[in-house]
């Protein structure tokens, strides 16, 4: 059987489309137990074929007026299916992924997809869960009802995937059993209005809904309890931060020791002078200072992925909705804003799942205030250098953890106040419908978690190897050139020194010196380079000690506040431009955040100088 050139995966949100995609392509794709994780269309190549596989965002329906389409995800899915996306061929076949435990609610979409008249395989995923919860489906009846072949699959464990491989034309597929046949191709699928399409085969006993997951409902008694719910929410958020800093700090320290040791060992082989300075002081110091934070960033992503995969994230959105609503947002903004703790770029992309345009724009505009992981190197370094490691609440909460939470708090407060202001001014809000489905709790798939983390590590290391390496090189060149009598120039007489001197009048009111100013400039390329740039400029890996001598505590606090609030990320600005389709919003955002950051840093410096 010749393979298709392009196959699209479509289905409702949270049915395991991305898991199917990962299984078929071996490509890494983020998988979560929360509606709307696939925020844009991904593609890969099916292993053993030349077939392109498109992973479309989850949709409940293909119908609707574009002006009120529930979200842009739906637009993307529909346009991709119709072949209306530029530079992309129309899919030749469709894998319609449905959730075996929710089939009765997914028939409307199934019929709409099948009505596109493309060869369609109905992939009934999580069929192991259906059986485990005493449900039953006669696949032949479903095939007859939908007029399409059906494959029963458990993508999480890989069961039944060979049927899909056979459909898309993988050679040497292990599948022996034929697919359930396509019935009477001339018969149109029976049309229905509301999603009651399973009732007929349900009545005939050919589909039995699974028993509700009792323990899932029991967990909800606590997770959504008026008192215990918010308490649990707060504990989990607090636990996330404590875990990250308790577990990641020693790992990072060890990692740094190893990497620095390697630099010393390697440096011994290099000739002294120019080459040694470039490779060790310029490049390696820069790379190490950032790479050190890999364990911390991975841990943060692990925790977010665990919350997503288990299903708790949807409950958190419900708990958070009331507070978010007060500030002009919805609970749906919670996941994007929470993932902004890792990085604002995927967070801004994740806002595509927010149905209301105003909510979405507001979320995009405030997301960069959230403390992204690229800010952590500077935060951690300054806290370690300036804040004593004193217990606050017994052994559970230390002063340093409090300081870190304070910084997260500043970012969040700025985000919430800004969204409130936007809600009252530029983006007056319509009272859009808010609905969030609570998926059943389930154990995370360790394979998906592993893939997710590997992916993050790869992206991070790639960034270190490209942008950060290049920034380190550029900073080193600017900090050591022009040459004086064939010798590298001291920092004061270098290009960077001149830029720093020019910036000094603006920095003085904030209690910052020109080295910090230069480092802040390089942060525009990548925020995490600030520590490495400071290391290069102060010519020491002990940046904290250097800062204690140069700017003192008041200056350090002002630097933290500036860094927490300023819009210093070109990739975020570029993403906002792409997602809002205009330069207006990113420029507005940049100006607004810069003014706020400068003003607040100035206030912090004045107040702390006065107090200390």
């Amino acid at each position, binding site marked *: 059987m010749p393979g298709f050139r392009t196959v699209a995966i479509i289905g409702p949100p949270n049915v395991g489309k991305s898991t199917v995609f990962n299984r078929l392509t071996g490509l890494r794709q983020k998988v979560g137990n929360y509606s709307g994780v696939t925020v844009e269309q991904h593609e890969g190549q099916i292993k053993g074929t030349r077939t392109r596989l498109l992973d479309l965002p989850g949709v409940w329906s293909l119908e609707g007026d574009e002006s009120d389409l529930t979200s842009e995800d739906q637009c993307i899915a529909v346009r991709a299916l119709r072949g209306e996306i530029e530079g992309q061929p129309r899919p030749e076949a469709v894998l319609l992924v449905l959730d075996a435990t929710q089939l009765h609610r997914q028939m409307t979409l199934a019929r709409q997809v099948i009505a596109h008249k493309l060869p369609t395989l109905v992939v009934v995923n999580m069929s192991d869960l259906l059986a485990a919860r005493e449900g039953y489906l006669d696949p032949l009846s479903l095939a007859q009802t939908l007029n399409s072949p059906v494959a029963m699959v458990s993508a999480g464990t890989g069961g039944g995937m060979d049927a899909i491989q056979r459909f898309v034309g993988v050679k040497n597929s292990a599948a022996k059993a034929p697919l359930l046949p396509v019935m009477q191709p001339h018969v149109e699928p029976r049309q229905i209005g509301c999603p009651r399409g399973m009732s007929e085969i349900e009545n005939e006993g050919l589909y039995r809904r699974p028993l509700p997951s009792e323990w899932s409902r029991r967990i*909800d008694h606590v997770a959504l309890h008026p008192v215990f719910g918010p308490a649990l929410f707060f504990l989990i958020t607090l636990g996330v931060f404590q875990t990250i800093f308790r577990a990641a700090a020693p790992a990072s320290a060890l990692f740094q020791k190893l990497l620095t040791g390697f630099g010393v060992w390697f440096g011994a082989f290099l000739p002294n002078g120019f080459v040694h300075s470039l490779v060790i002081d310029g490049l390696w110091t820069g790379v190490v200072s950032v790479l050190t934070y890999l364990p911390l960033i991975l841990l943060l992503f692990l925790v977010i992925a665990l919350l997503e995969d288990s299903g708790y994230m949807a409950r958190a959105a419900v708990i958070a909705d009331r507070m978010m609503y007060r500030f002009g947002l919805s609970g749906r903004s919670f996941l994007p804003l929470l993932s902004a703790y890792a990085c604002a770029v995927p967070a801004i992309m994740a806002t595509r799942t927010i149905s209301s345009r105003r909510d979405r724009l507001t979320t995009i505009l405030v997301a960069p205030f959230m403390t992204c992981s690229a800010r952590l190197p500077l935060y951690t370094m300054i806290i370690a250098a300036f804040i004593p490691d004193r217990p606050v609440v017994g052994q559970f909460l230390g002063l340093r953890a409090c300081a870190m939470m304070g910084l997260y708090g500043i970012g969040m407060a700025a985000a919430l106040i800004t969204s409130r202001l936007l809600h009252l001014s530029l983006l007056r809000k319509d009272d859009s419908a808010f609905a*969030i489905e*609570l998926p059943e709790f389930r154990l995370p798939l360790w394979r998906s978690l592993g893939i997710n983390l590997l992916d993050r590590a790869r992206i991070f290391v790639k960034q270190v190897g490209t942008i950060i390496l290049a920034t380190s090189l550029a900073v080193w060149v600017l900090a050591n050139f022009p040459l004086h009598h064939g010798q590298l120039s001291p920092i004061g007489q270098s290009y960077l020194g001149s830029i720093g001197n020019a910036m000094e009048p603006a920095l003085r009111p904030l209690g910052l010196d020109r080295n910090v100013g230069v480092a802040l400039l390089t942060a525009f390329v990548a925020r995490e380079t600030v520590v490495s740039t400071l290391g290069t400029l102060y010519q020491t890996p002990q940046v904290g000690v250097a800062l204690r001598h140069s700017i003192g505590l008041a200056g350090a606090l002002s630097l933290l506040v500036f860094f927490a609030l300023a819009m210093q990320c070109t990739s975020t600005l570029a993403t906002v431009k792409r997602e809002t389709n205009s330069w207006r919003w990113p420029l507005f955002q940049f100006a607004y955040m810069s003014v706020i950051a400068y003003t607040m840093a100035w206030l912090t410096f004045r107040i702390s100088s006065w107090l200390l």
Partner: protein
Amino acid sequence: MSPQTIPLSDLAVGTHALISKMGDDPHLCYLRCMGFCPGAHVELIRRVSGGALSIYRVDDADVALRKATAAKISVRMEG
């Protein structure tokens, strides 16, 4: 005696009802796909955040709705 029709938001916790009418708001389209259709059975499971949100069970799935959203859906009491 004709069965009483009330907004979904007025349902008491633990009671069942039949959806009789959906409002005209285009955003409700999304809810229709989630199973909120005329004729569907709906049960109020619990209120969250001091009643600002409620969890409804429709078609065996739990969905959280804001009070204002639920007010746009009319239900007929069962039994």
